[in-house]
């Protein structure tokens, strides 16, 4: 079993299309265990019930945004060790610094290429294959 197959990923994005693209990119990278949520609240609910190893979350979302979710994940004892990659559509320095301060493991700017997503994940987990 490859590393990618072992990692449970939760993708959190309010756009259906973005979720499709994310899960498609992850599948191409060899990930098999992918769950999706439409906002931070739903994402945290899933994490609390069934912790995932990696959260890839959009920043801009209704209800609870990506930073809110990051904070919630980091303060819950059962989920605080999860790797967290935040996606951003706007190249915003302040946001990147905030995410870093809150304990994000990496940031990936949209639009991303598969290679960049791979690099972002490997920077956290090491080589996927």
């Amino acid at each position, binding site marked *: 079993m490859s590393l990618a197959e072992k990692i449970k990923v939760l993708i959190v994005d309010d756009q259906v*299309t*973005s979720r499709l693209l994310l899960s498609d990119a992850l599948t191409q990278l060899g990930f098999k265990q992918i769950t999706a949520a439409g906002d931070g609240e739903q994402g945290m609910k899933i994490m609390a019930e069934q912790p995932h190893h990696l959260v890839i979350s959009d920043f801009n979302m209704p209800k609870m945004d990506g930073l809110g979710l990051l904070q919630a994940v980091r303060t819950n004892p059962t989920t605080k060790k999860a790797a967290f990659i935040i996606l951003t559509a706007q190249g915003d320095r302040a946001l990147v610094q905030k995410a870093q301060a809150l304990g994000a*493991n990496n940031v*990936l700017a*949209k*639009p*991303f*290429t*598969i290679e*960049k997503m791979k690099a972002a994940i490997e920077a956290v987990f090491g080589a996927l294959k």
Partner: protein
Amino acid sequence: MTADIAARRVNIIQGEYKVVTDPNVVLTTILGSCVAACLRDPVAGVGGMNHFLLPGNAQSMTSGGDATRYGVHLMELLINGLLKKGARRDRLEAKIFGGAKTIATFSNVGEQNAAFAMQFLRDEGIRVVGSSTGGEFGRKLEFWPISGRARQYPLTGAETQRTVAAEQKPAAAPRPVESSIEFF
């Protein structure tokens, strides 16, 4: 009409998007095989437009291509911009323009771009209240984001060819906003 004379015209070029709340602003753009999505929330009084050209084969959402991600990115920037100004996703309505046939490249890139926009809006549950896509001629488009009124003028054959040629020049490859990854 006086309203038209008083209007402030804001032109949008390929790869750009604008969101406005000022009823006196009219957004304008010139489209060959490019597509412009005009979105607005009639209740919040906010609207906007983007203008994109996806190179090559971008009609399938899950083809996983970089082109598709680029198009989704431009739609997302526009939608996020609207939401920030008080729009609600469930109230958004869209009009789609552009995607003329490109004689210059003997391809149906325009058609694929229009199909991409329609598919995206369908998947996101955003109502399409009007559209004018395809055809042999390019368009000059005007959109009043608050009222939702749109007006288009067909380009002549020569203008269409010039526009399409100009659209092809910059390789509309996905451009990350800044350095894509930040390693902590």
